């Protein structure tokens, strides 16, 4: 099947305090997840501007995932609560515009949840792979 040939590009925004540490822990425990996932470190999930997400799709990403501390555990006390609202509204809007909802995700991963990080990424890559290439938010110029 052709679908299996397709390797999606995934951008993962991870907050420095929980999720990035969770990703490190996944590494320390040698918990594999696909190489298609590339992490961008941000101080807090609330640093992620919707523009970054659209930018990623424009530039050829097939999926974007944002990981932050669990609600209530934010290093900055309230950052991820804002992330939650912003992304709830943004994702709902993308869905409204007919963009496949599987392409975006928010997941709370603590510094202790290396296994959850790996599992989340495996699952997300699988979902995005099934959706295939991002056609609805692509910018062909960026593929040249």
């Amino acid at each position, binding site marked *: 099947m052709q679908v299996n040939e397709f390797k999606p590009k995934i951008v993962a925004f991870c907050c420095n305090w929980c999720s990035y540490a969770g990703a490190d822990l996944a590494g320390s425990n040698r918990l594999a997840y696909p190489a298609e996932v590339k992490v961008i470190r941000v101080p807090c999930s609330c640093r992620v501007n919707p523009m*970054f997400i659209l930018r990623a799709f424009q530039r050829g*990403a097939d999926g974007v995932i944002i990981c932050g501390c669990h609600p209530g555990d934010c290093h900055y006390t309230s950052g991820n609560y804002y992330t939650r609202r912003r992304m709830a509204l943004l994702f709902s809007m993308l869905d409204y515009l007919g963009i496949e909802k599987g392409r975006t995700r928010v997941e709370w991963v603590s510094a202790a949840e290396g296994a959850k990080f790996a599992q989340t990424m495996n699952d997300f890559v699988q979902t995005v792979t099934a959706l295939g290439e991002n056609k609805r938010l692509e910018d062909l110029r960026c593929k040249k």
Partner: protein
Amino acid sequence: MQRIGVFVCWCGSNIAGTVDVKAVAEALKNEPGVVHSANYQYMCSQAGQELIKDAIKEHKLTGIVVCSCSPRMHEGTFRKTAEAAGLNPYMVEIANIREQCSWIHKDIAEGTEKAIVLGRTAIAKVNLNAPLMAGESPVTKRALVIGGGIAGIQTALDIADAGFEVDIVETKPTIGGKMAQLDKTFPTLDCAACILTPKMVDVAQHEKIKIYSYSEVVDVRGFVGNFEVTIKKRARFVKEDICTGCGLCTEKCPQKKVPNEFNLGMDNRRAIYIPFAQAVPKVATIDPNYCTMLKTGKCGVCAKVCTANAIDYTQKDEFIDQKYGAIVAATGFNPISMEKFDEFAYSQSKDVITSLEFERLMNAAGPTAGKLVRPSDGKHPQKIVFVQCVGSRCAACAEKGKEYCSKICCMYTAKHAMLTRDKYPDTDVTVFYIDVRTPGKNFDEFYRRAAEEYGVHYIKGMVGKISPEGDKLMVRASDLLANKQINMEADLVVLAAAIEPDKSARPLATMLTASMDTNDFFTEAHPKLRPVESPTAGVFLSGCCQGPKDIPETVSQAGAAAAKVIGLLAKDKLKGNPCVAHSDEMMCNGCSSCEKVCPYGAITYEDKEFRGPNRTTLIRRIAKVNEAICQGCGCCTVACPSGAMDLKGFASKQIMAEVDAICK
């Protein structure tokens, strides 16, 4: 254009095992801005660091990318390395090719390809890095403790013992707080006054501590290390430095009918008064609401009897401005009002009292000199009912009670029951409870002693109604374990009222820009890891203003807060985190979105004059970030619609460059 050096680490075989490090170094050579690319077995080793330093000098590098382990591991190391070679430490970026690459991928081709992308991403970012300088601010070596209860006292003593000046601001005429009103303390039953009053004396005598009693904080400006506080010292109409506290005036004052708040209104005091014998400062205070002299100008008895000439009817409120490096909130708690609990007949019957009133009744220095009698007729109560959780754990009655557990009631009720049975073995004591919570050292043993040795009847169930019938009180309750309704006569009912933060906390939090939860308890910077710090830098939390606590817990938290303050004041200068938000004033709209989401209150506004087109000037409201307060979360950058707000070190353009590099 940057001159970037790339350093790919093997980490022995940790990276080199699944990533072709030489190929990575070779591939990254061609990235924009890269002028040097090297690989080495252990970049973090002395030799590896020397290699980086040499390359910085030799190739005149303006930025470096280290492809190695997680930045959480060695970012600090390589920043120091860069700094040692004369490069700004924030011109260093780490590509995490170990934890997030070599360790999770088995295929060398795959690992190598990903490592190149991660390296490219870090290069794209460093291309847009700018040198960052951490700001420095001096620290005023003086602390302010707001609240003079046991929490404030302990914090002040600990800070002062470390050699720093401390001021305590207390709204009451004396320090001591709630603990001064208590009789005995659980679970050891030692008398509260015996352990508290020596500490109060220590405070009074400590050369580093100054007490502003009968005073309040009215304004707070500035930020961590540099707070400026205005304290209002209310006129007490007695010259504090002259009054000897002899108490003669308080005996001679003709106005005798002033409810004594120290005894919760259960007896009276004079218009000029000293709250209790061991008050600190032991100075009289005139209550302007009752003093005939102040109200009508006719009387002056106290002035006549005062041999020290300490009375001054013309005294005015005084405002004192003082600078502090740190502020500790220790504003404490109060029992909630029982007015709304009609079902418990608190307002109808004098013989329904709160636990704090019971403390005063049992106290040898209390209104009855420690004799337990009914407030209505002075008779000895034969049957006492204690009702637990009045207004606590009360999700359904949010308009009058509290959702949370007040934490201390189970234990003090056990104490009250035990003391009653000990002193008056003929008294029948029943406690109605939802659960008995005893998570503390020797707590459960204490409770079981009350129930088992002292014969206190514990009934699991809620009291539904209390109604005065004749000179008795009828208690209607349910016994959940026996599954039956109980009607019980009682002579005295004691309500374990929920506790709530003192009313002064909310306006104080506003002044401090410290956040509060919906119950008006101060919020911690982190509920687990920074429990005695407020999210606002330089503001610390001590005692019940943060949440319900018993005395040992309060004291240990007070000590912890003091330790944090000492840690702060011990520094001569505060070095800030340079990765802070910054607002471009040319683009700022002054809309306040950023201010609203800032958890630290780091953003303020000012009206600034700008040059408009054609030689006009216009005034615009713009945001200013206080870099000493900002912690760099970046929440404001997304709240800002115009993009005026950006985060140094994680600028929008940098993140977008990373996105571009990954998606390429």
